[in-house]
């Protein structure tokens, strides 16, 4: 357990009411640093955001209007006064920054001295026994977090603060990014030589040992972002925006905060972890006569959190044996050792410590959900789930709840029976499975059997698990190529046909040595369908045209689905001829419904499951079932009727997808639209069948070829299962109640997936239906029955055990914000179908406010209402939530089409946590020194972090941007682009020139490795500063105000604070 997890974040910001307006007014106008400089005329006491208590008093009213009414002056006054009150007494202040987990020295002043003891005392918060006082012998706990020397070795204060510094250095990238302003210090700060300034600062303000160097000192006229200078004098606490005269103020609270941890705290339920919450509380400074703008560096930095986690958790493998422990973040590279729970690569939960009762859960509003990626690909150094064969009788299961044999089955009566960990039912062990127990009650073969020792494994399914009690056939892939005018003209047809010739050699297979058993078929279509007979015995393929699209049928049986190797000559001849045949087509109309029907019929006729690849270009307006009309109506956007744009036009495709799922017919759709194609409707079948939608708007062969081909290659090759059913079983007390993802459900428990590939996740929400016990915890077993690409029927089982808690604090300490955001966004995006967008947004904000308010009320030490106190695990919730709210789906800009929104909406529904993370909070890398194997540290997504002299790489999960500052160094440009001149850079390039210099090589390596991490190929766009295209790029700088009206991070945080305060009052 890492201390940081315990730490609440307290951010204190003070404003005077009257200035608040102007402050925000500024904010509205500018995102950039300048205002900050002004507002921070006084160096605030720096505290790391990590524990910051933010005193957001009255000012928020001026927060972007969309957030509702502004409080009256009276309210504001009240708030202010409350703030003062709250801030006064407790305020743990400074210490919060530091991870010191639990028992911390009461005396803040003695930080240097105290800190070490706190480590010793501080139990390692490690999951299992949070309730126990940390054994003194466990100094190591903080270590991983700090990535520094063991606590015992911690140097006296100054150095310890340095050790800590990484965690506080989040802003430091900013320094890097602006090398011009203060290069030397930057590097120092980064590489963490002891910095004089911090020393000074710390010495002066020992209780606020914070990343002084990294924080811009606004008051200084000098370089805006980095000042070592001012710090000594007035170490600024980023979280504060105190009045100039108040530097000492934090001190007192600090000490008090430290002193109080063990005391009973109002609202905090248990005495067990007294210290931990306290950290968060930072005293709100007394209201200052002058108002400060909230310093962006003072608020929680995603980069910092990511870097901290990476620093602390990537070195050692993550072992899953311990129940309830939170895995490393998705941004951290780590190895997993399966010791009884499913790897986080398969399952991630929003909380690893879930409330025992429904009431608690309701109170906290923290969603209980698991994001499951059942067929996730593992890195090469981790073993894929073992295959278990229980023989003819099939997998051993509980008699009652049918849970599969797993490590949580308790063997009793000498091994003759076992008790189910889910429903407690006792089941006889079949004779062939009998094994003796050892003295601890474990089966002696425990370690030899994956199903008794691992979190994830597979069973060989018997014929009982097959459709119609018949072993399945190998699946088939059918390619449907739109050959209408637009498709041909865009070059798509040509590219697909060319590519398929080689791609067919890479059909999925389990044994890399053997040929794939997947059979293939080909169809082209415009408003009629052309089937091809590619039987191996034919000299030439034969085309069979079906014009009767109103009532689709399969015109041929033999020779449609073939083995690639047998029919290679015919297939190649076909793929050569298709582009020629339709080169002069004048047919512009297409059908869509009949195309899927045809695939479905083909699979039915072949009695197998399979996947349809549709390459489609336009709105299907030809007379046929599933014909669509153009209903795009921008006027609906923003109204209560907006939701209709996300709903399918008719029930046709829903019904069709039902049939597809029944047959195991998965549909992948590649769209090449030049105008509205109604993604919301066309996507229904792919989304319901476990398929994917790929969209290449305004596809141009030369520009988009690479991206499309890489997507296609991956899509064809990726391992997947067919005709799958997923069932999530839980221990008594909770129940899986809701599911999100690309699938179909005909009842409330079975998730049916016509296809399930390695990139697809299913998100499951759990709710209580009874009490849980702290002793047993809660179990979850996700079983996926599927047909492999070789036609074998299998069951993949993932088990996950989590702890149960009766204290809310435990819940808040074991949450994973990334997963929560993943869940929230899925929930919100789905709600769009039935709820006006505004309501969805309000609900989101409200729920987050409730979560945080609940924490504040129940877990944080009493403090001024003016303080914003965030649980450590959730300190990024506001920033990420803001990103969700600002996403194109929930808050579209004028240039975002309905199709784009529908596309993103569907795309998100099956994203895993790492994809959703980068999707909402893109990764922005400054391209400075690229030597060595490590990546440069990312910077926060804000324009003010960009230096005109730099080049940055931004990864959004869907795109890569290479932003080039107008004053970028010539050497840099030469290294990257081969030209030293900014103006000579071609903004239309889609790939970087291959230059023979280490920088270029490394950059391209990085880009390649980024691409390989994502399920979709990211197109590279070069954006030159001040160029038109920069607008698109800026859209992804999600901490800034967005062009579409999205709030900046700072503004939103204030708004959240207001919401929380309203809930608390």
């Amino acid at each position, binding site marked *: 357990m890492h201390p940081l997890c315990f730490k609440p974040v307290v951010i204190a910001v003070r404003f005077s009411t009257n200035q608040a307006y102007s402050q925000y007014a500024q904010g509205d106008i500018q995102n950039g640093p300048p205002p900050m400089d002004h507002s921070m005329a006084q160096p605030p006491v720096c505290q790391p955001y990590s524990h910051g208590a933010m005193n957001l008093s009255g000012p928020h009213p001026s927060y972007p209007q969309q957030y509702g009414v502004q409080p009256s002056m009276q309210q504001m006054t009240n708030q202010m006064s409350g703030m003062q009150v709250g801030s006064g007494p407790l305020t743990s202040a400074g210490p919060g920054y530091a991870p010191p987990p639990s028992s911390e020295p009461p005396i803040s002043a003695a930080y240097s001295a105290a800190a070490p003891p706190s480590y010793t005392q501080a139990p390692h918060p490690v999951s299992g026994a949070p309730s126990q006082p940390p054994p003194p012998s466990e100094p190591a706990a903080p270590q991983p977090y700090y990535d520094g020397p063991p606590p015992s070795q911690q140097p006296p204060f100054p150095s310890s603060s340095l050790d800590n510094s990484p965690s506080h250095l989040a802003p430091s990238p900013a320094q890097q990014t602006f090398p011009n302003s203060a290069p030397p210090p930057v590097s120092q700060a980064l590489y963490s030589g002891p910095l004089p300034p911090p020393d000074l600062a710390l010495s002066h303000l020992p209780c606020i040992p914070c990343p002084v160097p990294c924080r811009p000192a606004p008051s200084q006229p000098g370089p805006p972002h980095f000042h070592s200078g001012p710090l000594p004098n007035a170490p600024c606490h980023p979280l504060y925006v105190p009045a100039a005269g108040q530097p000492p103020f934090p001190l007192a609270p600090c000490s008090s905060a430290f002193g109080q941890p063990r005391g009973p705290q109002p609202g905090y339920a248990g005495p067990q972890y007294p210290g931990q919450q306290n950290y968060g509380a930072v005293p709100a400074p007394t209201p200052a006569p002058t108002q400060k703008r909230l310093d962006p560096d003072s608020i929680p930095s995603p980069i910092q959190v990511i870097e901290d986690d990476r620093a602390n958790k990537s070195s050692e493998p993550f072992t899953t044996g311990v129940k309830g422990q939170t895995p490393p973040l998705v941004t951290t590279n780590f190895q997993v050792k399966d010791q009884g729970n499913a790897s986080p690569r398969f399952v991630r939960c929003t909380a690893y410590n879930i409330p025992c009762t429904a009431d608690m859960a309701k109170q906290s509003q923290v969603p209980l959900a698991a994001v499951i990626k059942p067929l996730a690909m593992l890195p090469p150094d981790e073993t894929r789930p073992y295959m278990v064969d229980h023989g003819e009788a099939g997998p051993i299961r509980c008699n009652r709840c049918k849970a599969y044999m797993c490590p949580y089955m308790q063997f009793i009566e000498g091994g003759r029976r076992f008790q189910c960990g889910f429903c407690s039912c006792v089941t006889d062990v079949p004779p062939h499975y009998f094994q003796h127990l050892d003295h601890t009650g474990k089966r002696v073969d425990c370690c030899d059997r994956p199903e008794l020792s691992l979190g994830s494994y597979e069973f060989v399914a018997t014929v009982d698990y097959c459709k119609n009690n018949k072993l399945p056939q190998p699946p088939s892939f059918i390619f449907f190529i739109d050959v209408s005018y637009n498709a041909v003209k865009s070059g798509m047809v040509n590219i697909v046909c060319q590519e398929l010739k080689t791609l067919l050699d890479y059909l999925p297979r389990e044994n890399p040595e053997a040929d794939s058993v997947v059979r293939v078929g080909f169809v082209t279509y415009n408003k*009629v369908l052309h089937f091809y007979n590619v039987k191996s015995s034919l000299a030439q393929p034969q*085309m069979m*045209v079906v014009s009767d699209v109103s009532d689709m049928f399969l*015109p041929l*049986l033999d020779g449609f689905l073939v083995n690639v190797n047998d029919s290679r000559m015919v297939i190649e001849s076909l793929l050569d001829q298709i582009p020629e045949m339709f080169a002069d087509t*004048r047919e512009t109309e297409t059908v869509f419904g009949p195309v899927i029907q045809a695939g479905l019929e083909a699979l039915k006729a072949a009695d197998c499951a399979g996947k349809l690849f549709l390459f489609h270009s336009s709105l299907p307006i030809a007379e046929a079932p599933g014909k669509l009309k153009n209903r795009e109506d921008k006027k609906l956007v923003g109204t209560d009727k907006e939701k209709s744009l996300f709903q399918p036009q008719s029930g046709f495709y829903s019904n069709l997808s039902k049939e597809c799922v029944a047959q195991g017919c998965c549909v992948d759709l590649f769209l090449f639209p030049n105008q509205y194609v109604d993604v919301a409707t066309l996507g229904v079948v792919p989304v319901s069948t476990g398929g994917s939608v790929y969209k290449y708007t305004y596809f141009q062969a030369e520009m988009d070829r690479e991206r499309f081909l890489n997507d296609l290659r991956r899509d064809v090759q990726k391992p997947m299962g067919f005709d799958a059913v997923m069932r999530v079983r839980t221990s008594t007390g909770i129940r899986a109640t809701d599911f999100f993802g690309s699938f179909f459900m005909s009842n409330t428990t079975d998730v049916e997936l016509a296809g399930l590939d390695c990139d697809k996740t299913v998100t499951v929400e759990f709710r209580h239906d009874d009490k849980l016990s702290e002793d047993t915890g809660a179990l979850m077993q996700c079983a996926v029955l599927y047909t492999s690409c070789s036609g074998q029927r299998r069951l993949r089982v993932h088990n996950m055990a989590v702890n149960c808690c009766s204290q809310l604090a435990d819940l808040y300490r074991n949450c994973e914000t990334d997963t929560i955001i993943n869940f929230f966004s899925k929930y919100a995006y789905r709600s769009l179908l039935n709820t006006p967008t505004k309501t969805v947004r309000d609900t989101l904000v409200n729920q987050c406010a409730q979560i945080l308010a609940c924490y504040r009320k129940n877990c944080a030490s009493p403090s001024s209402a003016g303080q914003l106190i965030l649980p450590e695990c959730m300190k990024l919730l506001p920033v990420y939530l803001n990103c969700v709210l600002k996403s194109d789906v929930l808050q579209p800009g004028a240039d975002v089409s309905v199709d784009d929104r529908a596309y993103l909406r569907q795309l998100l529904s099956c994203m895993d946590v790492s994809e959703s993370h980068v999707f909402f909070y893109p990764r922005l890398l400054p391209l400075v020194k690229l030597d060595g194997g490590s990546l440069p540290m990312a910077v926060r997504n804000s324009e003010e972090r960009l230096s005109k002299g730099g080049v940055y790489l931004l990864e959004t999960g869907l795109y890569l941007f290479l932003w080039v500052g107008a004053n970028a160094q010539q050497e840099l440009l030469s290294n990257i682009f081969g030209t030293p001149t900014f103006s000579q850079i071609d903004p239309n390039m889609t790939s970087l020139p291959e230059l023979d210099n280490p920088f270029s090589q490394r950059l391209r390596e990085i880009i390649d490795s980024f691409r390989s991490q994502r399920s979709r190929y990211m197109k590279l766009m070069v954006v030159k500063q001040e160029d038109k295209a920069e607008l698109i790029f800026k859209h992804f700088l999600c901490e800034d105000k967005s062009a579409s009206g999205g709030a900046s991070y700072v503004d939103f945080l204030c708004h959240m604070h207001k919401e929380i305060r309203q809930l608390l009052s």
Partner: protein
Amino acid sequence: MREWRVAMATYQEFIQQNEDRDGVRFSWNLWPSSRLEATRLVVPVSCLFTPLKERPDLPPVQYEPVLCSRANCKAVLNPLCQVDYRAKIWACNFCFQRNPFPPSYAGISDVNQPAELMPQFSTIEYIVQRGPPNPLIFLYVVDTCLEEEDLQALKESLQMSLSLLPPNALVGLITFGRMVQVHELSCEGIAKSYVFRGTKELSSKQIQEMLGLTNPSATGPQGRPAAPQDPAVTCRFLQPVHKVDMNLTDLLGELQRDPWPVPQGKRPLRSTGIALSIAVGLLEGTFPNTGARVMMFMGGPPTQGPGMVVGDELKTPIRSWHDITKDNARHLKKATKYYDALANRAASNGHSIDIYACALDQTGLLEMKCLSNLTGGHIAMGDSFNTSLFKQTFQRVFSKDHNGEFRMAFGGTLEVSTSRELKVSGAIGPCVSLNAKGPCISENEVGVGGTTQWKICSLSPSTTLALYFEVVNQHNAPIPQGGRGAVQFVTQYQHSNTQRRIRVTTVARNWADAQSQIQHIESSFDQEASAVIMARLGVFRAESEEGPDVLRWLDRQLIRLFMFHLRRSPFLQVFNNSPDECSYYRHHFVCQNLTQSLIMIQPILYSYSFHGPPEPVLLDSGSILPDRILLMDTFFQLVIYHGETIAQWRKAGYQEQPEYENFKHLLVAPVDDAQEILQTRFPMPRYIDTEHGGSQARFLLSKVNPSQTHNNLYSWGQETGAPILTDDVSLQVFMDHLKKLAVSSAA
């Protein structure tokens, strides 16, 4: 008595001469001059007309016929017209309109007459220029639910036929089984076909849309002017033989049996109905009113979709007469209606449909017969495509005449004009009504009536229609002595060399007062023609009415005629013949010419023996003798029957011994004669070589007059023939009965 003889000789010559020249045979060659008298004659004034009777001696003229200018007459100038050479005016002999000759006739005089005015050109043929020449079209519709061997044979026949087609003819291919495939013949590389579900009925418009035959500019990119019909588009499915010869040969070569599995106990699913509707729709859309021939080859009954004749369950047999009588034939009415509608569509576009049905069981000809009957198509019926019967028949469709031209013509219309005293009641033959109203239509409809024009989609030189007239002249308005009634037949058609031609036949007969000249009228009676004409009427009725009713009607009408064999023929008797066979026989009966029709009614029996040259003998059981070889020609069958003794000799192999060469010659003689018949007969008759006691002998035994049966025991054991095991009455009994009736007043 003498006079009678003379008259007889005269009339026989007259009839023969008329037939040779005009292809016309009237039931009466003197016409009773009033309606009343005509009605009394029982056999109406009527004729058999063979529009394209081969006339090698008749060179066509290369100009347009001259028409009467009266709007509702339009009769063609003919030798019976009165001509005023000086005034250059001619009088129409039908409506008496006086018409000036066209300018091109300025030079005529009584010594310089155009051909159409010369009496010997009562039949004349004009070649006219009307629009661009239309190619002939052959659309093959091929069933693929065949046994491998059958399919192979059929494929070979089809491939062979490509070489027989006129090189510029358009050819198309539709195959069907569970699905229907329309093959595109124009494309290189990939073989393309359009596939249709076999169960779904589509309108002609839908079919054309689905085949992409509608004008593409309607749906094409905006702003393009409507391009003129691109022949390449319209013809994708119908291409000149010389262009796609190789392509099509390969295509046929690669043709596979229908790939869909046929479960045990099921018939293959055969979408014949849809295949035909697509064929008809395709031609309708691309080549309306152009001669085209849909040639359908089927190896079994339609089993699905519209036009289905029997379900796919083998345990449910195809309908029999028994089922039909009991109204147990589920699909009969629906299917018949369906094919009827198709046939009418095809006919109205001038396309004809052939059916080549080869299967051991019935194939649904009963339901489908109208396809051919109404469109002038052929029906051939055989056991397998791998028989010479089919192969020869199919080959003979493409036979050529002495000019090297195909013996087929397309898109014919026949228009009949009559003198005022005569009206047209109707026609029976391979034709449909064109519903052309005119002054000479009788209210009394016989056969296809109510019109003066009929469409005959496909014509061969032997195609013969029976036309029925009514004398409408009232008894109290006698026609002056020597008055003549005239009938003009105008046949427009597309010659196989793609020329449009018009053949005009104008005939006239004298009116006679039945009271004073009854003997003359009697002597002008053409027994053969009448027999065929009345038989056609009987068959026509039999098609639409219940069998026994027709027999009763026939008995009432024809009691005075020798219709013994007709009564027993499959045309009227369904016993012993399946519904399909009846349909087949009837089809041929109503389109063949007189000679062939007579053979069908009363088969010919020749006897070969050592006693003398071959001689025709009575079709009687008495003719079956042990030392004779019999050759029977029923039109549909050729039976060589070896008498008991002959059979024994043959078995003993005497013919191999040189000293019995005469026996060998005897054996060979009927075979040679049969070959001669086989050479010319269309469709190929079933050739049967059998002997006394052979199972195939039933073909003979069922035809002969059962003068000796197991019932008239006295004849047992006599040397004079073979007894027939039947309950049918013999001719003797029939005649006795007839005599009785004839003298009784009840008749």
